[in-house]
């Protein structure tokens, strides 16, 4: 295992006590355990409090637009599919603004690891409901509570038979590290939805709230059994399952391309002779 110090130690812009502080070291440990030195991994993030996380890591980073981390990561991975790419952002960014990319990423199955800091609220914009806010969650923007049904990212991912679907909790570090590690190791698209208390704007889904409800799936649980996974993905409320909810083994997207078998695009020169042949088709 690599030394955690190589990932640096930065000042953050997070609120004291925020769940994000529990996720950051877990990510470092998972990177170290996965043997990824700083330059051997690329992080892509969006905008929000969670999306700042990779700034607090000594790694390659593209911090793009709110909601658009997945397409950037997809492009980066296809350009160089020998480089591991990790997407890290908030629930609003990932499932709200970025909802369409979430669906597409699951279907495309590019080998990406997606870490979602799910605090069930828009933190950086000061506490409006996020897609995962529970029904009835009261905010200034939703003074009578949220009317919409919450978005269940796990249910959608399992419904679309995503390659790897897991849930973790910021308050359970070892398990979280394990989930991230497995997600990195699993080929294809891998989601880790991380329950993350927001101490400033979410006074309902607190550390205690999660702690009282979360349990880890038993070893007997078979994440390859789709109907069971579907039901598990729906469990929420009094009991919240943590662990690998569903696993699939579809070929990663990039493995389909003949032209990527030998070398990543980033190392491929322009073959002039082939270009000459190509032009002949237009004669």
């Amino acid at each position, binding site marked *: 295992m690599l030394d955690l110090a190589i990932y640096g130690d930065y000042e953050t*812009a997070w609120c004291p006590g925020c769940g994000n502080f529990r996720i950051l070291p877990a990510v470092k440990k998972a990177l170290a355990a996965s043997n990824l030195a*700083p*330059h*051997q991994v*690329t992080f*892509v993030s969006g*905008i929000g409090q969670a999306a*700042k996380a990779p*700034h607090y890591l*000594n*790694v*390659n*980073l*593209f*911090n*793009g*637009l709110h909601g*658009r981390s*997945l*397409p*950037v*990561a*997809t*492009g*980066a*991975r*296809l*350009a*160089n599919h*020998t*480089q591991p790419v990790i997407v890290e952002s908030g629930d609003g960014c990932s499932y709200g603004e970025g909802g*369409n*990319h979430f*669906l*597409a990423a699951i279907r495309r199955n590019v080998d990406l690891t997606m870490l979602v800091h799910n605090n069930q609220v828009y933190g950086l914009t000061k506490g409006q409901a996020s897609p995962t806010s529970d029904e009835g969650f009261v905010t200034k923007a939703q003074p009578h509570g949220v009317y919409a049904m919450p978005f269940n990212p796990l249910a959608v991912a399992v419904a679309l038979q995503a390659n790897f679907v897991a849930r973790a909790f910021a308050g359970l570090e070892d398990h979280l590290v394990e989930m991230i590690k497995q997600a990195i190791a699993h080929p294809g698209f891998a989601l880790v939805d991380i329950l993350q208390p927001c101490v400033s704007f979410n006074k309902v889904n607190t550390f205690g709230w999660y702690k009282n409800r979360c349990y880890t799936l038993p070893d007997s649980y078979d994440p390859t059994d789709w109907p069971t996974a579907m039901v598990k993905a729906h469990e929420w409320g009094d009991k919240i399952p943590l662990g690998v909810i569903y696993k699939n083994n579809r070929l990663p997207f990039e493995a389909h*391309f*003949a*032209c*990527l078998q030998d070398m990543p*695009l*980033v190392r*491929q*020169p*322009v*073959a*002039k002779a*082939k*270009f*000459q*042949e*190509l*032009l002949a088709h*237009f*004669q």
Partner: protein
Amino acid sequence: MGRHDLNLLIGGEAGQGLVTIAMILTKALVRSGYFIVVTQSYQSRIRGGHNTFAIRISPAEIIASRAQVDFLVALNEETIQRHRPEMSDAGLVLVDERFAGGNDQVLKVPFQEFATDRSVNVAYLGILTQLLGLDEAVVFQALEDYFGAKKPEMTAANQAVFTKAVQWAEEKHLPETVRLAPATDRRERLMLNGNEAIALGAISAGVKFCAFYPMTPSTSIPLTLQAAADTMGLVVEQAEDEIAAINMAIGASYAGVPAMVATSGGGFALMVEGVSLAGMTETPVLIVVAQRPGPATGLPTRTEQGDLEFVLHAGHGEFPRAILAPGTVEECFHLSRQALFLAEKYQTPIFLLTDQFLADSYRAVAPFDIDSLETVKVGNDPAMVPEPYRRYAFTESGISPRLLPGLSEHLVVCDSDEHTPDGHITEDLTVRRQMVDKRLRKAAGLRAEVSPPAYVGHVSPDLLLVTWGSNRGAVLEAAATLKTKGQKVAALCFSQVWPLIPEHFLDYLLSAREVVMVEGNALGQMARLIRRETGFEIRRHIRRYDGLPITPEYVLQALASGATAAR
């Protein structure tokens, strides 16, 4: 003997095989040494409606389409009714004898005698071969090449129909009014439309990634890239939407490959936030916008130049960019290349602004000198950057060394927030000002690399026609016509519309007695831009915004009736 300038128009419903006949004929013409300018006009539907494919043909180089039709190939009766008014006096109409209507200009052919409904295209080609005076073997080879891959088993049957049609035509001693003058310049040429040329130019420069969401008239760019993907080593990905497309391209570019997107107005509208992202993160990206008439869905399959100001100002905040607007298919190839080079060098979004007319306009293009075509070198040498590596290091040119993530031990940190030189988010307002200045300094470099507009004609003309993009041919030809009539005339054609360098052209504007702006929109956007950059107000305008391309005739008629004042 024969025609030195023939405008042939094939018209019919979508799905009738019109494009098949036209494409094979065009290929045969190019292989026979003719120059061509194709204008495609089609509707936003798959079957039915009324479509046309016009081929202007000449043994000498031609640069514009023409409105007047010399030879009308009518695949249905509607075509005759619609296009009769556009016919020249000595023209010919070719129709199936089963169609009604016709006078002495009409040649009726009993297609059912030598073809079934399925092979009637082949019969048309036979008749056309004879009427135009083409080499049977060349046409049949083009036909074979077209169908070959799809249905090789058809060769014998096609040959029979083709021969029968040619023979019928020979025996009938048909009128020779549309026979072409022999081609004299037999050098090999490519048959390319604007979109294909853009795709090929990009490939030659080293593009490795394209993401797109289908949108007429841009789609054939990614499709051309896709067809070459296996051979050339490209990834061409259909994205879930245009927002994803541009963000994917930016991701690919960040990771180290020349990347592009292609779209049209509405799709580009969705990319606008991404444009700003490329500007802020200083990520090279080529954005092709093939214009069609707006607003909103507008006329999806027609042409316009209504998005110049939109593209120029697309994206929130301020950052440098360049907009290239090719005037010919050759320029599509070369400016697509140049755009990729500029994007990489200045690490900013670069635009190629075309339109449906040019996108779909086939031309005979001289082969490119492949050996001399350089390819884009992506990023800097990791061994040469000062340590610690800083993605946004302050420099005099504003251009910072660009490394690629994972290809060295240096870390590459890019941020859409305002950032410090090392790429990390900052709210330091002094750094903010410095970073704005740094980014905008790159504009000076871009300005220094602007290609001046082409000036053709009299040095102090009575009339100066100014235009940009795909109207170039029409304007040059209109100017040439006026010159033959003794007018002191000149034309100024922009193939780069941003940045504008007044020193390149203001004197031309000032020395002409009268200046007329020719552009394919209703508001005179280029004229406004010229005034903004020079103070010079162009007072006479020729504008078109009915979805059709500007032709030499359109320009001449507008001039004759006194070009309009500004709106």
